[in-house]
């Protein structure tokens, strides 16, 4: 049975009528056509589906739609503004922090969450902040460098 669910996604009010146990990931991709959020493992291990829920990093594959009712969501589509890449995105681009791109939306949002907590993170804090985001292309060093450059750009 479907349940009406309302939330704010990237600043826009949205209403959907979906099964309450539908994964937030699938609501975003199938009902709202926000396909920037990716599915990797579907088990909360890889972070490809990470979004910000009321400012907290979560894996959207593990959030039942009903638990997002009334919340404020930010997906990768909401990170850039007015056609301008966010400094985090720009730094991933410049430092080669993205290759195939599947992990990148989650990496960007995990970085966003990390830099909210620690504007000038240590390497250890970066490693912990991104430990839930798996990348099979870059080997992580370029991702760590991208995060460091983003921190330097945003909070010099």
């Amino acid at each position: 049975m479907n349940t009406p669910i309302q939330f704010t996604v990237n600043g826009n009010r949205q209403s959907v009528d979906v099964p309450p146990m539908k994964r937030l990931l699938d609501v975003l991709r199938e009902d709202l056509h926000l396909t920037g959020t990716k599915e990797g493992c579907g088990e909360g291990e890889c972070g490809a589906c990470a979004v910000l829920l009321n400012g907290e990093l979560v894996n959207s594959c593990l959030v039942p739609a009903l638990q997002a009712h009334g919340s404020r969501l930010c997906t990768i589509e909401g990170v850039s503004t007015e056609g301008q890449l966010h400094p985090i995105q720009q730094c991933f681009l410049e430092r080669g922090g993205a290759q195939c791109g599947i992990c990148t939306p989650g990496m960007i949002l995990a970085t966003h969450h990390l830099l909210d907590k620690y504007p000038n993170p240590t390497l250890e804090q970066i490693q912990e902040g991104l430990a839930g985001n798996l990348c099979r292309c870059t080997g992580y060093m370029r991702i760590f460098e991208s995060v460091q450059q983003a921190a330097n750009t945003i909070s010099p």
Partner: protein
Amino acid sequence: MRSDVSLYDLSAPPSLDAALAILAKEPGKYTPIAGGTELMVALGVGRLVQHSLISIQHLRELRFIRVDDKAIHIGAGTTFTDIRRSQAIAEDLPLLIQSASWTGSIANQNRGTLGGNICNASPAADTPPALLAYGATVRLISASGTRTMPYSDFHLGYKKTVLRPDELLHSISVPRDFSDYRQYIRKVGTRNAQSISKIALAAIAKLEGDTIADIRLGAASLTDRPVRCSATEAALQRQRIDGANLDATVRAARAALATEAKPIDDIRSTAKYRAAVAANLLEEFLRSL
């Protein structure tokens, strides 16, 4: 195979009382779901057998950290992130902070709850060894009242607990008078981040000179449930750890632990490895005193 989510029902009762009334009305029909870091994984792979769920994730009554003179009281709906942000827990219960920090990733710590970690009742769960070593008590609540008990009595077997179908775990209370104890915790997994324990040991001990005056041990993946190692604790009471006696004390500790270690072979490790490493961790702690 993916579950058909249209076959699952989930509601969000407006209060703790409302949730308990639903559980009391049809005991066993509804399964509580908090952060979803366990049940949603089962849903994703088509293995969630419970089809009627009630969300307790939003209940403020279950999400608190209260400190009094004797103990820190932690609501079952408190997330690992909440725990890591608590100055009081950081000061008084460092082993709990450490175990919360190695539970899953940041995204999972933002959602997963202490109550879920306990009630899911995995023998490999991260926070139980610390809670067992600290001698925590649990408070269970239902529409007909509350009951409290030592946490060491909560687990009955593999994924089995004393929790009745109409009950929820309300809170965990942890004594906070450990300033004169030496404290130790170590988890052995496949990698540093978000691994599931092959074996884990939490230990605290108070010394009088070279003599162990009190020692408490909690372990994960050592038996079919999170367990307090009472026989080993008993064997170590009043034992001496000075240079002349330390080797004998370590030998006695390893022998005692072997009597209560009942690990299993599974995809993550072997029983032999787990028993050997558990004894090594205990020895590491004793030699650090």
